C-alpha cells in the first residue's frame, strides 16, 4: 500500500478533475455523455489511482482510514477488516486475510462492472446506429409519401381537367346537333316558302300562256299550215281508221294485253328459274346422300346414328321426289320440305367431315409420315370450299323464297332475271361437282396410303422377329464358344450362365416393348451352353463381330454397351480361377446384358490376368 502511494502527480489529479468537470458541464447527448463518463471512469490511470490513494490515506491517518474503510465495507456487506476483538479495550488488529479477500472481492466486482459497462456501451452503440438507421428510413419514407401525395394531386387535377374538357365537348356536340336541327328546319320552311312563291308565279305564267294561246288561236294565221306535195301512205300500209268509242276500248284492251303478256312472260321465267334451282338442290341432296352412305360399310365409322338417318332420309327423299315430279308446284309445304331436307343433309355431311378430320388426326398421332398431313390439309381446304358454296346456295334459296312469296302476294312487275341467274347457277353447280369429285379422289388416296403404311408396319414387325431369332442364334453360338473350360469354371459358368440367363430374360422382358416377338430362345440357349462346359468348341467368329452385332441389337433394344477393346477379345479360352469371383462381382451390379458379355469377352485370355479386368 505504501508503494502505491509514493507516486503522486498533482497535474494528473487536476487533469482528472478537469475531465470530470468537462464531462459534467458539456451538454452532450445523454448516450455520449454517459459513455464519456464511463470512459472516463474506465480509464485505468494508475497515476490517478495513485493520487486518489495518496489523497485518501497518508501515514498519519492510517487508523482512521482503516476504520473508515471497514465501515464502508461492512455497509456494503463485506466482512470486517478487523480481527475479532478479544477484549473491549484492546486495539483491534487489522485482519490482513480479510483485507485481501475484500480486495479480491472488490477487484472481481470491478471486473464485472467493467464487463457490464462494455456490454452496455456496445449495446448503446448498436441502439444508436439502429436509431440513426430508422431515422433515415423514416425520413426517406416521409419524402416518398410526400412525392406520391403530390403526384396523386397532380393526377386528380389532370383528371378533373379532362372531365371538364369532355363535358365541354359534349356540350359542343349538343350545340352542333341543335344547330343542325335548326338549319334543317330553316331549310324546310324556306322550301315551303319557295314552293308557295313558285306556285304563285306559275299561276301567273299560266294565265299569260292562256292569253297567248287564245291570241294565237284567234289569229287564224293562214300561215299555220302544212304544205305537202302529196300525202304519204301509212307506214304499215293500212288505211287509217276513225276514232270511235270502239277504238278506245280496243286501245284499252291492247294495253292490258301487253301488260299481261309481260307479266306472264316474267312469271314463266321465274318458274323456270325455280325449277332449275329445285333441280340443283335435289341433285345436291342426292349427292350428299351418296357421299354419306358408302361410309356405313366401314367398320371404323362411329357414326352409326348418322347412317341411320341417312337411310331414313333416302327413303323420305324417294317419296319426295315422286311427289315433286308429280305435282311440280311451288307450294309452301313442298318448298319447306325441300329446304329442311337439304339442311339436314348438310348437317350430316358436316358432322361426317368433322369425324373424318378427327380420325385423320388420330391416325397422324400414331406416327405416320408427313404425307398424311398434307392430304388432310387438302381435305380441310376442300371441305371449307364446299361449305362456302353451300352457304351461297342457301342464301340463294332464301332470296328465291322471298321473291316467290312476294310474287304470290302481289302481282308486281317482275322481269326476267332468270337468264342471267341460270348462268350463275350452272357455273356454280359445275364447280361444286368438280370439287366434290376432287374431294372423293383425295379421300381414296388417303385411304390407300393408310393401308400401305399398315402393311409396311406389319412387314417391319416380321423383320424384327427374324432379326431377334438371328440374335438368339448368335448368342447361342457365343455361349458355346465361351465354354472351353475347366471344371473349376464350370460352376462359375453355371452361375454365370444362370445369372446371364436370368439377366437375359430380364433384359428381354425389358426391351421387347414395340416388338411383339420375343426371342425366347436366347435364355434357353445360354442354359444349354452351361451344360456343355467341357466341350471344346470350334473357334467362334470373332467376338468383335459378335460385339458389333450385340451392339446393334442393344441399340435396337436400347441397352448400354461396354467398350470392349479388340485385343482382349480372344475367343477361345475363359479366364482362370481368380477371375471367377470378379465375374460375379462384375456381372452383379450389371444385370444388363452388356456387362456380362463384356466380362466374358475380357476373360477369354488364356491365363488369369488380373490386369486385364475391366
Amino acid at each position: 500500500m505504501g508503494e502505491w502511494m509514493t507516486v503522486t502527480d498533482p497535474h494528473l489529479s487536476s487533469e482528472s478533475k478537469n475531465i470530470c468537470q468537462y464531462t459534467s458541464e458539456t451538454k452532450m447527448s445523454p448516450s455520449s455523455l454517459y459513455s464519456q463518463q464511463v470512459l472516463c471512469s474506465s480509464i485505468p490511470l494508475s497515476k490517478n489511482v495513485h493520487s486518489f490513494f495518496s489523497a485518501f490515506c497518508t501515514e498519519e491517518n492510517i487508523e482512521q482510514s482503516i476504520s473508515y474503510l471497514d465501515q464502508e465495507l461492512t455497509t456494503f456487506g463485506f466482512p470486517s477488516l478487523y480481527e475479532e476483538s478479544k477484549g473491549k479495550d484492546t486495539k483491534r488488529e487489522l485482519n490482513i486475510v480479510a483485507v485481501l479477500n475484500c480486495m479480491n472481492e472488490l477487484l472481481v466486482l470491478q471486473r464485472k462492472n467493467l464487463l457490464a459497462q462494455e456490454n452496455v456501451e456496445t449495446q448503446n452503440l448498436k441502439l444508436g446506429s439502429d436509431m440513426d438507421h430508422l431515422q433515415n428510413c423514416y425520413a426517406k419514407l416521409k419524402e416518398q409519401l410526400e412525392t406520391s401525395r403530390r403526384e396523386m394531386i397532380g393526377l386528380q387535377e389532370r383528371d378533373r381537367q379532362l372531365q371538364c374538357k369532355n363535358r365541354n365537348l359534349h356540350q359542343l356536340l349538343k350545340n352542333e346537333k341543335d344547330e343542325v336541327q335548326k338549319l334543317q328546319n330553316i331549310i324546310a320552311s324556306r322550301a315551303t316558302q319557295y314552293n308557295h312563291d313558285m306556285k304563285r308565279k306559275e299561276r301567273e305564267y299560266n294565265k299569260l300562256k292562256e292569253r297567248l294561246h287564245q291570241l294565237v288561236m284567234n289569229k287564224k294565221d293562214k300561215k299555220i299550215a302544212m304544205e305537202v306535195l302529196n300525202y304519204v301512205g301509212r307506214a304499215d300500209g293500212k288505211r287509217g281508221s276513225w276514232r270511235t268509242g270502239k277504238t278506245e276500248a280496243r286501245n284499252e284492251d291492247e294495253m292490258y294485253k301487253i301488260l299481261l303478256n309481260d307479266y306472264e312472260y316474267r312469271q314463266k321465267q321465274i318458274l323456270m328459274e325455280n325449277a332449275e334451282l329445285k333441280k340443283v338442290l335435289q341433285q345436291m341432296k342426292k349427292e350428299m346422300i351418296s357421299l354419306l352412305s358408302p361410309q356405313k360399310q366401314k367398320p371404323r365409322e362411329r357414326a352409326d346414328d348418322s347412317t341411320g338417318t341417312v337411310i331414313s332420309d333416302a327413303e323420305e327423299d324417294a317419296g319426295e321426289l315422286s311427289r315433286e315430279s308429280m305435282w311440280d308446284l311451288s307450294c309452301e309445304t313442298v318448298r319447306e320440305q325441300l329446304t329442311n331436307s337439304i339442311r339436314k343433309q348438310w348437317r350430316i355431311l358436316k358432322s361426317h367431315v368433322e369425324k373424318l378430320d378427327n380420325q385423320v388426326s388420330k391416325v397422324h398421332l400414331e406416327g405416320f409420315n408427313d404425307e398424311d398431313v398434307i392430304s388432310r390439309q387438302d381435305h380441310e381446304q376442300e371441305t371449307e370450299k364446299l361449305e362456302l358454296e353451300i352457304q351461297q346456295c342457301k342464301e340463294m334459296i332464301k332470296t328465291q323464297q322471298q321473291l316467290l312469296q312476294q310474287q304470290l302476294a302481289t302481282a308486281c312487275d317482275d322481269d326476267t332475271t332468270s337468264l342471267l341467274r341460270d348462268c350463275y347457277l350452272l357455273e356454280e353447280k359445275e364447280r361444286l361437282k368438280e370439287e366434290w369429285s376432287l374431294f372423293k379422289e383425295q379421300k381414296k388416296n388417303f385411304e390407300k396410303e393408310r393401308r400401305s403404311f399398315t402393311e409396311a408396319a406389319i412387314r417391319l414387325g416380321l423383320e424384327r422377329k427374324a432379326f431377334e431369332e438371328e440374335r438368339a442364334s448368335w448368342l447361342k453360338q457365343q455361349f458355346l464358344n465361351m465354354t472351353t473350360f475347366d471344371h473349376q469354371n464350370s460352376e462359375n459358368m453355371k452361375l454365370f450362365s444362370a445369372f446371364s440367363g436370368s439377366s437375359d430374360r430380364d433384359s428381354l422382358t425389358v426391351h421387347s416393348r414395340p416388338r411383339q416377338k420375343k426371342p425366347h430362345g436366347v435364355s434357353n440357349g445360354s442354359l444349354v451352353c452351361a451344360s456343355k462346359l467341357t466341350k471344346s468348341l470350334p473357334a467362334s467368329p470373332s467376338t468383335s463381330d459378335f460385339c458389333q452385332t450385340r451392339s446393334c441389337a442393344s441399340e435396337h433394344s436400347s441397352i448400354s454397351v461396354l467398350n470392349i477393346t479388340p485385343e482382349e477379345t480372344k475367343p477361345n479360352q475363359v479366364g482362370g480361377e481368380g477371375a471367377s469371383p470378379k465375374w460375379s462381382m462384375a456381372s452383379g451390379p450389371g444385370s444388363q446384358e452388356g456387362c456380362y458379355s463384356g466380362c466374358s469377352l475380357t476373360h477369354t485370355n488364356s491365363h488369369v490376368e488380373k490386369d486385364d479386368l475391366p
Partner: protein
Amino acid sequence: MNFSEVFKLSSLLCKFSPDGKYLASCVQYRLVVRDVNTLQVLQLYTCLDQIQHAEWSADSRFILCAMYKRGLVQVWSLEQPEWHCRIDEGSAGLVASCWSPDGRHILNTTEFHLRITVWSLCTKSVSYIKYPKACQQGISFTRDGRYLALAERRDCKDHVSIFVCSDWQLLRHFDTETQDLAGIEWAPNGCVLAVWDTCLEYKVLLYSLDGRLLSAYCAYEWSLGVKSVAWSPSSQFLAVGSYDGKVRILNHVTWKMITEFGHPATVTNPKIVVYKEAEKNPRLALGRLAFPPPRAAAGAASSTESKYEIASVPVSLQTLKPVADRANPKVGIGALAFSPDNYFLATRNDSVPNAVWIWDIQKLKLFVVLEQLSPVRSFQWDPQQPRLAICTGGNKVYLWSPAGCVSV
C-alpha cells in the same frame, strides 16, 4: 381504224339513218345525205333557213329539218327527191320537233311550250296537245312505238298522259307526286315508266303502263337530287345518278336499291384496272390541228399521239372543285349509259371530269376506270357489242372494250 376525210358540218347535226345505210349531215341550210360505205353524196337538199335540228324517220325514208327561227319544218324523202313537205307554225313559233315512231307524224312543240301540234303526213288531220311541260325530257316513246308518254303541267301539278300512237287517243292521264317533274322515260320493255323530279328533290317514281304507281324511291333529302337516269336494256335495272356523286341501281322486282356505286377520286382496289391516257411523244404540239391525224404511213410527226398506260393502284384522279354559289354545279353523275348486252354501265362523275368509270353489272363492282387528258365530253356504246367510244373534244376517239382500250 382510220379517220375518213373531213366533211363540213354545222351545229353538230350529223345522224346515221336507223337502218345504217345513210349518213345525213347539215351544212348551214343544206342537208347532205351520203352513203355509209362510200361516203359519196347521194342527195343534197336545200332548206329555207339554217337548220337547227334534223332527224331521220324510223323507217329511214324521210328526214325532217327544223328551223326554229322561222318556225318551219321541212321534210325530205330519200326515195323521191322531188317530194317535199313544209310545215309552218307561224306565229306560234317552234321550240322542238320530232318524229313519231311510225314515221308519219311530226310533233312540233310551239313556243313557250303552249302546245304540241301533231301533224300527219298521211292525212290532213292535225291534233293538239295542250299544256306540255317544259322540262328536260318531257316526251318519251316506247321502244315498240305504240305509246307516247307526255309530261304536262296543269294547275301547278304535274301530270303524265299516255297516248296511243296509232290514233293519238289518250289512253291514261294521271298526276304524279312530284314537285316539278324533270323527266320521264319508258323502260325498254314498254311496261314501266320512270318519272323523276327536279334536282331540288330526290324522287324517282315508277308507273306501270296503265297508270298505277308501282313504287317511289327517295335516297335522301335536302341535298341536290337526281341528275341522270338510265334503264338497262333488259329493263332489269334502273340506274339513277345523283348530285352526291353516286349511282344507285334499282331492281325491277322490288324497285328497291340493290347497290350504290360511289365515285371517289382515288382508286385503291387492286382488282380495278385504271387506264391513263399518256402522251406518246411529249413534244411541243404544232398547234391544235383541226385535222385528224394523217394515215399511219405518212408518219406521226405532226401531232401528238397518245396511248393508254395501265396505272398502278392507288391512283388518284384529277378532280374539279365546283363553284359553290352557282346553280347547276358541276358535281354529280352527269352521264350514264348501259352497254347493249347489259354487262356494263359507263358513268361520268362531273367532279372528276377526265374519267369514265365502267362498272361490271354482273358482279356489281367497279371494273375499269379510264382517265383521259382532257374532260370527257360524251361517250356512247356500240349498239351491238360492249364497246364504248369516248370523245374529249380533241382530235382522238377513244375506244374501250373488255379486251382493252385504244386511242385513235
